[in-house]
């Protein structure tokens, strides 16, 4: 009977006696007999750890993808995570503690999160960042909620260049508050804001992806100008690695930055746990969703950290809270702080640069294959780009897996039937999104190109 319980038979006897009970079952006297489960749970008996580990090793082997050279991205990137970051983030003090409710015994997590907030704020080019949200998609939802609250207008214009999954999540959660989400279509990888107006109702919020889900760097100045004209809050869904090379959302004039922090030291892990990044301008601080760590002093005047502006949060404000988030992704925020500390000022830029070099080299080579066309126009790309293959993308991915490569993400799988306003079903079916991180060597890229060349011809 494997478990982690310390109770010996004697312990149980003594403790029951102390309670004046004669059986463990009596502990549940307040549970109506009629409701009691008879026959126990419909689960197997417990198995010792080594058996369970063996099962998981088998399941792990059944994930062929983990062994492939990864050119897939679409919001989840295969960046370098060094041993030093894994070992520090794995310290059990960070891993097995709860939310820092008692500051005196939680300065470790509190200070690490304070440093994380500082780093996110610097990347965002905005003064305030919170202690994390679930993932990029949930950060987007919170950003839109903040924007609607701030503008007082429930109409939201979202560029179709924002990650399709994030847009889907936004649609799901817009139902409650009753936001009216208008999707602004792409054309050749650029958002066509012009048409949007017809949708009726002045928007309170504009959302732009930077880069967008096809890897294109659109012009945030255009969105900013539009937002100014409409008196709307500008939310930029930005990639923290790209910001190593390009202007920050703050520099572009965004009011809110939301983002996915997976690229900052978090493993691919089949999509989670990831890390929602959230930053905003000073004026919105009291609408900030989620936890915030602030600096203060202790009774001896020593510098100390504590969660602050708690009055925004659900446990105090309850139904009037700015958000319902409680548990967030602190451990991954701490991991990101460590990873950023490892990268440092030069490393973040270097990673972004190497990604861009690899992507450029890879894209040029792939476009050399006949039948392979760019899916986007002149809009510049950095780490990721979209192609139109002469063959269905899912077939190509299947063939390249056999050659040892995860060639990318098939667009139709990614956008499902929601599209992005420019992709017809046929283009989606032949669309492949390819990402190249700093970990990809020239040999791997050449190998991919050769294999893809073969695959589209056979």
């Amino acid at each position, binding site marked *: 009977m494997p478990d982690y319980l*310390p109770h010996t038979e004697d312990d149980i006897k003594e403790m029951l006696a102390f309670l004046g009970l004669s059986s463990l079952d009596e*502990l549940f006297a307040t549970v109506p007999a009629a409701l009691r489960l008879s026959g126990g749970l419909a689960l197997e008996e417990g198995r010792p750890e080594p058996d369970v580990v063996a099962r998981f090793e088998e399941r792990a082997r059944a994930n062929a993808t983990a062994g492939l050279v990864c050119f897939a991205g679409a919001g989840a990137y295969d960046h370098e995570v*060094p041993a030093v970051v894994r070992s520090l983030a794995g310290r059990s003090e960070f891993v097995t503690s709860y939310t820092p409710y008692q500051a*005196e015994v939680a*300065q470790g997590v509190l200070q690490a999160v304070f440093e994380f907030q500082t780093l996110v704020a610097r990347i965002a080019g905005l003064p305030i960042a919170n202690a994390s949200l679930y993932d990029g998609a*949930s950060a987007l939802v919170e950003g839109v909620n903040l924007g609607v609250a701030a503008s007082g207008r429930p109409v939201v214009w979202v560029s179709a260049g924002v990650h399709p999954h*994030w847009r889907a999540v936004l649609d799901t959660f817009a139902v409650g508050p009753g936001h009216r989400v208008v999707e602004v279509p792409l054309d050749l990888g650029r958002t066509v804001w012009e048409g949007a107006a017809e949708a009726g109702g002045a928007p309170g919020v504009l959302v732009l992806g930077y880069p967008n889900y096809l890897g294109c760097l659109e012009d945030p100045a255009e969105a900013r100008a539009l937002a100014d004209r409409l008196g709307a809050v500008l939310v930029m869904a930005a990639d923290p690695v790209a910001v190593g090379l390009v202007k920050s959302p703050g520099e572009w004039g965004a009011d809110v930055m939301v983002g996915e922090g997976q690229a900052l030291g978090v493993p691919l892990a089949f999509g*989670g746990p990831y890390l929602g990044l959230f930053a905003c301008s000073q004026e919105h601080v009291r609408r900030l969703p989620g936890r915030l760590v602030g600096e203060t*002093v202790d009774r001896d005047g020593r510098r100390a950290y504590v969660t602050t502006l708690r009055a925004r949060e659900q446990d105090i404000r309850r139904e009037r809270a700015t958000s319902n988030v409680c548990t967030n992704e602190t*451990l991954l925020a701490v991991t990101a702080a460590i990873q950023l500390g490892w990268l440092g000022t030069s490393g973040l830029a270097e990673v972004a640069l190497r990604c861009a070099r690899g992507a450029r080299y890879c894209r040029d080579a792939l476009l050399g294959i006949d039948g392979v066309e760019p899916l986007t126009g002149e809009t510049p790309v950095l780490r990721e780009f979209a192609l139109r293959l002469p063959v269905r993308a899912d077939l190509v991915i299947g063939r390249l897996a056999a050659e040892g490569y995860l060639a990318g993400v098939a667009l139709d799988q990614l956008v499902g039937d929601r599209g992005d306003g420019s992709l017809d079903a046929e283009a989606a079916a032949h669309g492949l999104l390819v990402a190249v991180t700093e970990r990809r060597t020239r040999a791997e890229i050449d190998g991919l190109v050769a294999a893809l060349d073969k695959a589209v011809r056979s």
Partner: protein
Amino acid sequence: MTSAPGGRARSIPLLGHDTEPTLFELSAPGRQSWQLRTTGVPDRTVDELVPAAHRRRELVPIAEVSERDLVGHFTRLSHRQFSIDLGAYPLGSCTMKYNPKVADAVAALPGLAAAHPGAPASLTQGWLAVLVELEEALCAISGMAAATLQPAAGAAGELTGLLLMRAWHAAAGEDRRRVIIPDSAHGTNPASVTLGGYQVTTVPSDARGCVDMAALRAVLDADVAGIMLTNPNTLGLFEEDIAEIAGAVHEVGGLLYYDGANLNAILGVVRPGDMGFDIVHLNLHKTFATPHGGGGPGAGPVAVSARLAEFLPGPRPVRLAPGADGGPRFGWETPARSIGRVHGWHGNALVLARALAYIEVHGRDGLLRVAERAVLNANWLRRRLSSSYDVAFDRPCMHEVVLSAATLRKAHGVSALDVAKRLIDEGFHPPTVYFPLIVDEALMVEPTETESKETLMALADAFEAVAAEAVAGLLDHESPRHTPVRRVDEARAARRLVATYDARREE
């Protein structure tokens, strides 16, 4: 400005009580930790790659530290942090039980950790198996028909559940506006209700600490979309009238939502589905021992009864017809009337894998033992401490007991906070304080099943010693005394907000 020394360790309690400099203060221009793979990819300048309009002028300032100083800094910070691995953590409502290390090993398997979420099902059968088998186990445990694993935490599960409620009523052509929650509910419940587009109707607790049936009946009508309950409730008490409650709510066409934060108490004893709940969220980071990471990640799967399954978020991992080899096959499927996605990918996958490992080790028998021991421990503490503290509702409890320092406060001017802080000096993490809100000077104690009788005795001794000090007028407001920082000035933190290192420097 010269940087702080990265090799000085007076900030670890082992050596001293200095403050630890920030990463930014440890930074010195030109230091570097990063090492990246040699790729052989042709060099290109930034100018070639990034159009001038987008190019940033200066690098994003991060910090410049050596790997050695990076390690020193974060290792020192870890010595300033309490955790389960260091000792008991009886934080009520948080189920801080021991997190088996085997789950960390499972989560570290490259075959799981290095799997891309966008890879096709044919290349991720192992992960799909993990998800499907976990969903099946959670349904068996909760007594429900189907589940979504997407919600990243309990609160996300709550909101997902409320949207399911909304979709259900909408499908029935109804537009109900109110959701009922008891006054003892956790803050995420009302907050989620609002985000779900509903108004909160609060029902009081009765003298026994349970939902006041009369009051409930009084607010039930056709405008009620449903009720959110946790059972055992946040007072650690089992809602004995749950069958009546379910009947009454169902009668007016409402649905019952189960907040699974307290499921630990009833594993294998009684299932939410059998109590009449329609929608259930589970906190895997509580009941199923996935480490809480100082505030997250968690996972809050939502399980529903058959009639609600078609509304679940999608895509969902599902079993397909066995393959040619007869082995199991898995794929993705989006329910007919799905409310849509609630997560950017498939949920907090590595947390889900950990929970499945925990469930497989314990199995049907082990999970029941977990509940029994958790309830045994809590009741033992309740009985032991009922003489030195007020017990909010002094009758058999489930996995946790809510004490109160109300009498100590009135008679001796000592608050729940004073008691909590003083317990730190005794070598214990304090219980949850001032929650639930309906209990004056609440001290909410959840020992969990992984603490031994000896630990409970020591904890009880500590509680009693503190009470005795209070009675003797010896308990001051000075504790904790040994921690690297003493009581912190929370008011100042809010008054003069310094949420980043840069804000500090601007001061």
